């Protein structure tokens, strides 16, 4: 039986006069490093972008040092062994784009899953199986290529739906679901295809539509394939969707804390299903890009075995947190490009394949350590 009524407890009488300052002060003595940290902290995909630009410039300087000297007048053409730009030319730079197209698109699918605090070990296997389906449906059953591609896309989406259902409804950890799915899909791929390759020449002659993503656009020495353009467009569309639509906000919320998201009114099941299905669809789209790039349909494509690790590497170097809910999808694209630049750059500077492999390992740890340093600020 409180007598104080709506005026509150007796000791609260002075509250009306309370002021509302909080213990928030401006930085006192912050140097350039701190400002940089802050800037990078608020723009997560800037870090991989800067790494990308720096590593491109670094490799360019290293590889093209002689022609640069010539161009700058520091050396005469006769004095150097090579006066031609090898790295800094539109052919090489667009070649990197072509080489990362497959991993880049897979990394987009992987990013979606990782944003929901999942991980998908089956991305590469789904891509390979779907490429086999697109090819075999056309050649084995004589289905029109366009329809076969559609069937492939639907099939990839369906695999994604199965994984999504197991994750969201049966509540199995995504690592396990996709570990199992990886083996299942890859084995199904070999069993269904009987390891038969469909040759590039045959596809070109009978079903060129399958190779559509390999269609080339030349601008001077630069060569862009439709696959590369699709990768870039897809990345931008997804970046828009994740940032500016309700669905995107829900994906981040689910990755951050699924229980909180559910209680806050997000349909977690629907969001997860949409993400896994979309990721499956993107993997199936990768299948089409693969056919475009290789010309042929090969069930033993390496992507089936290591595409998952490649995609995860790109995502991680792109600064997207494996714990979900944090990161920008453009980062994954930059991550894939960084790996591409390193691989080609190292190969061009004469590192042999084994050293390249080792240095990529160092790159992974280094990139994430830098990212961690940047994130330390203000958390």
């Amino acid at each position, binding site marked *: 039986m409180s007598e*104080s009524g709506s005026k509150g*407890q007796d000791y609260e009488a002075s509250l009306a006069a309370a002021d*509302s300052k*909080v213990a928030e002060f401006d930085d006192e003595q912050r140097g350039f490093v701190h400002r940089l940290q802050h800037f990078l902290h608020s723009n997560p995909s800037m870090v991989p972008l800067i790494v990308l630009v720096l590593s491109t410039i670094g490799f360019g300087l290293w590889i093209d040092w002689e022609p640069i000297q010539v161009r700058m007048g520091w050396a005469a053409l006769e004095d150097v062994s090579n006066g031609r730009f090898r790295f800094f030319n539109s052919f090489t730079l667009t070649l990197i784009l072509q080489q990362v197209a497959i991993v880049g698109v897979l990394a987009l699918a992987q990013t979606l899953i990782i944003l929901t605090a999942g991980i998908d070990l089956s991305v590469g296997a789904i891509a390979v199986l779907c490429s086999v389906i697109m090819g075999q449906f056309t050649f084995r059953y004589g289905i029109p290529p366009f329809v076969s591609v559609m069937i492939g896309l639907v099939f990839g989406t369906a695999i994604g739906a199965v994984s999504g259902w197991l994750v969201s409804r049966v509540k199995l950890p995504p690592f396990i679901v996709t570990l199992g799915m990886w083996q299942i899909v890859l084995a199904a791929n070999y069993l269904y295809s009987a390891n038969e390759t469909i040759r590039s020449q045959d596809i070109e002659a009978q079903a060129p539509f399958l190779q559509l993503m390999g269609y080339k656009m030349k601008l001077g020495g630069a060569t862009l394939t439709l696959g590369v353009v699709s990768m870039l467009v897809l990345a931008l569309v997804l970046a828009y969707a994740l940032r500016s639509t309700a669905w995107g906000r829900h994906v981040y919320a689910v990755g951050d*804390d699924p229980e*909180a998201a559910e209680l806050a*009114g997000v*349909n977690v099941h629907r969001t997860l299903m949409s993400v896994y299905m979309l990721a499956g669809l993107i993997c199936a789209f990768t299948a089409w890009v693969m056919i475009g790039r290789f010309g042929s349909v090969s069930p033993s494509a390496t992507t089936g075995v290591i595409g998952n690790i490649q995609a995860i590497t790109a995502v991680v170097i792109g600064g997207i947190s494996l714990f979900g809910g944090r990161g920008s999808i453009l980062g994954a694209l930059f991550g894939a490009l960084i790996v591409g630049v390193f691989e080609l750059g190292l190969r061009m500077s004469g590192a042999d394949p084994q050293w390249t492999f080792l240095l990529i390992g160092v790159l992974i740890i280094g990139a994430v350590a830098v990212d961690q340093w940047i994130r330390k600020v203000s958390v």
Partner: protein
Amino acid sequence: MERTPILQGKNLVKRYGKVTALDHCDFELYPGEILAVIGDNGAGKSTLIKAVSGAVVPDEGEVFLDGQRVDFNSPIDAREKGIETVYQTLAMSPALSIADNMFMGREIRKKGLMGKVFRQLDKAEMERLARDKLNDLGLMTIQNIRQAVETLSGGQRQGVAVARAAAFGSKVIILDEPTAALGVKESRKVLELIQDVKSRGIPIVLISHNMPHVFEIADRIHIHRLGKRLCVIDPKAFSMNDAVAFMTGAAEPPPETIPA
């Protein structure tokens, strides 16, 4: 009493393994009232309000809204009917901004083509509204409506959650220990907000361990004990001491304490 309860639970049962958190529990909330729910730790208060707000599907029993039987399978169902809840855990996404969190699940799209076809969100509008709501709560100390919730203090977070519920609840607002982590000043703001909401005609369920607060603002007090409703008392007819005695099992409630 012939009024229909606006929100009602009948015979609710919820078991967690060996623990029966709700044991054939009844619950009624009448239009326009502030109903306090009090009880020992672990008595099942949070489970009760989860059951009537869709966050938990009870093993047995029924929930009625405006006298109509409803089956909430998720908090979204309840929200669509106008029931807003601040859960004890707050239900915030730490990495997202205050505005994102306030509009989670009911985002506002841009007008025209961008919104209809490209489904673009109207961030500016959402931020403006979020700022207004927080100002009402006296939380203008939050400088940047875009800052991530994880950078807020526990008290500020609780404030944002309460502001969200107050802004969107059209039928019932449920608050589970909204002032547990709050300081004196901040708690007072929340109590004022509750009375403000009540004056808009929206009934409120308030779970709290703070007896002075409960007796200050509640119209009726639901005393929960061992997973069920022990009795409902009128704060004007009983003392805090009585309430504490009933809730802790130190005294038996008189039979006439259960109205309705």
